């Protein structure tokens, strides 16, 4: 029997060193604060690797190539009041990103044939970006207990997430910006209304937001993860933009024996790529129409505290094969509409009870008894498709298998603290 396999080791290793090399604060007056600081970040990425075989033949998929980069950010943040009603928080951040060698860049022609290789020595600059990130938020107090807030934030992100949607196992790859992958830009606009009741016992808010993203990355159609032979990882991506908008409601009880909050968001997140889905926009993998969280904590007495968490969310979208066909003696899946299928919705209830232990002068402790996923909801993590039988007879069946993680899970935790 013919055996073909493609094994993708999803261990995309990366480490990031984050170092705040200076930070200063000034207070010209009690209602005015200025912060000034700098942050240095070092990235090392090692993309995952793939191995493949067909029959007795193993394919060489090349060696892993590390990507090294460094980032410097300098920020200035000013927070001040105008009169009694207006508070402004304004900031500006300058960001410098630098991708450095050792690195081999494979130059391709339009047929994706390598026509030249450029070698960069250790520490030599491969690509760099200078970016400015302004932000401003304005709060207007209507009375003592209610206010409006409007905000604008511009962000650049140099660490990108690419999801491999056509492989059934969700494969996420993190890659840094490179010469081909430009820093991801996001601009967020929001408008909110906040109101407190009963002497700040209850806090409520409603916030409307719109976010626009540019330079998003996705794998090109038909590309294989981590094909490392004479290939740079950034050659397998295609670039596009995204939109997200929604409204968030929050009700929070801060005081009393029973506290907690209820948060609900209705939103829509789409992506649009010229080279994907025939240029038509498609739902983002994390597009979540409804998202609900309920958190309640009740103090029964001095010793006992009980709490519960309920979460509900629309299922992630993903791509499933719409049909199968035989070609060149192999069974091939035809991908359906991009992210056109929804996983079942995600929901779960967790409960816990905390018993406060005896307290001494040096030591305090508590026991927490909790149950994760109380009603044992089998939330789908991913769905995979398996061939069952032999298509040469043919006597074939394609089975869909759902893998769920984290079923009903009781646990006991002992917390302790030295004073």
């Amino acid at each position, binding site marked *: 029997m013919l055996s073909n396999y493609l094994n993708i080791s999803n261990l995309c290793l990366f480490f990031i060193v984050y170092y705040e090399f200076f930070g200063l604060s000034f207070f010209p007056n009690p209602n005015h604060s200025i912060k000034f600081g700098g942050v240095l970040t070092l990235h090392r990425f090692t993309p995952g690797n793939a191995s493949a075989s067909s029959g007795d033949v193993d394919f060489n998929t090349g060696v892993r190539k590390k990507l090294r980069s460094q980032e410097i950010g300098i920020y200035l943040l000013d927070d001040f009041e105008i009169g009694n009603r207006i508070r402004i928080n304004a900031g500006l951040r300058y960001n410098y990103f630098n991708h450095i060698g050792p690195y081999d860049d494979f130059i391709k022609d339009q047929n994706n044939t390598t026509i030249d290789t450029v070698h960069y020595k250790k520490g030599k600059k491969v690509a760099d970006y200078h970016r400015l990130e302004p932000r401003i938020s304005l709060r207007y107090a209507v009375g003592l207990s209610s206010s409006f807030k409007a905000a604008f934030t511009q962000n650049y992100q140099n660490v990108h997430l690419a999801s491999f949607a056509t492989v059934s196992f969700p494969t996420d790859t993190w890659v840094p910006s490179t010469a081909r992958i430009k820093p991801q830009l996001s601009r967020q606009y929001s408008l909110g209304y906040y109101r407190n009741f009963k002497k700040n016992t209850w806090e409520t808010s409603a916030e409307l937001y719109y976010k626009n993203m540019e330079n998003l990355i996705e794998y090109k159609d038909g590309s294989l993860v981590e094909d490392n032979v004479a290939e740079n990882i950034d050659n397998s991506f295609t670039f596009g933009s995204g939109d997200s908008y929604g409204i968030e409601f929050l009700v929070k009880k801060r005081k009393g024996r029973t506290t907690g909050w209820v948060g609900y968001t209705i939103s829509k997140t789409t992506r649009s790529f010229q080279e994907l889905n025939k240029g038509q926009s498609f739902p983002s993998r994390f597009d979540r129409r409804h998202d609900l969280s309920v958190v309640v904590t009740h103090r029964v007495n001095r010793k006992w505290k009980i709490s519960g968490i309920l979460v509900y969310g629309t299922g992630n979208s993903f791509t499933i094969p719409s049909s199968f066909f035989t070609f060149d003696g192999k069974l091939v899946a035809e991908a359906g509409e991009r992210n056109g299928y929804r996983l079942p919705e995600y929901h779960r209830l967790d409960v816990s009870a905390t018993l406060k232990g005896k307290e001494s002068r040096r030591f305090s402790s508590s026991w927490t008894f909790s149950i994760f996923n109380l009603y044992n909801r089998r939330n789908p993590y991913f769905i995979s498709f398996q061939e069952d039988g032999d298509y040469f007879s043919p006597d074939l069946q394609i089975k*869909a298998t759902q893998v769920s993680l984290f079923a009903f899970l009781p646990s006991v935790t002992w917390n302790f603290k030295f004073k």
Partner: protein
Amino acid sequence: MESEKLKKNLLTIIGLIIAALLLSSCEEEISLELPVVQEKLVIDGYIEPNGPALVWVSRSIPFSVASEMVVESDLLIRDALITITDGMVTDTLKQIPGGFIFGGTGLYWNYNLTGQIGQTYELRVEHEGRVATATTTIPQPIALDSIWFQTEPNFSDRGFIRGILTDPDTIGNYYKVFSKAINKDIIIFWKPFGTT
């Protein structure tokens, strides 16, 4: 000392919790509610110098069908009308009956018309009102300058097949490499089976 011990115990506990979380995954077969997809005509064929035209015709199987049991008739198309022309001669391809089913797919051929280098061929497939056409030209064959087998020190039973060829200066050349193990792989209809 005491706190060292506590730390160690705590690490053990954390380890056990992580192990429990990892073990609590669950795998089950599910049925998906899927939009109805129209099956499509699948055509796979080639013509080689001095060889006959070979065409496989089949149907794609929508997932809703594939999730049940696929039977031969879901895949096979026995009554397609296939013609091939080199501009001068037009010929009809015949289905190879019965036992010559390869990959559950219907194979059609015609051995009156054999491939000539530099010749252009037009293929037309008609089935139940659907028509598909394709055009191809047989390029000049490129000989291998050299070929050798290179053993892999870490493996006793495998190695690399390496070869050198001179790619002519035209854009859009593709090469497909076939290999087979002697006395092990069987070849059916010129399509090396087992290794492509």
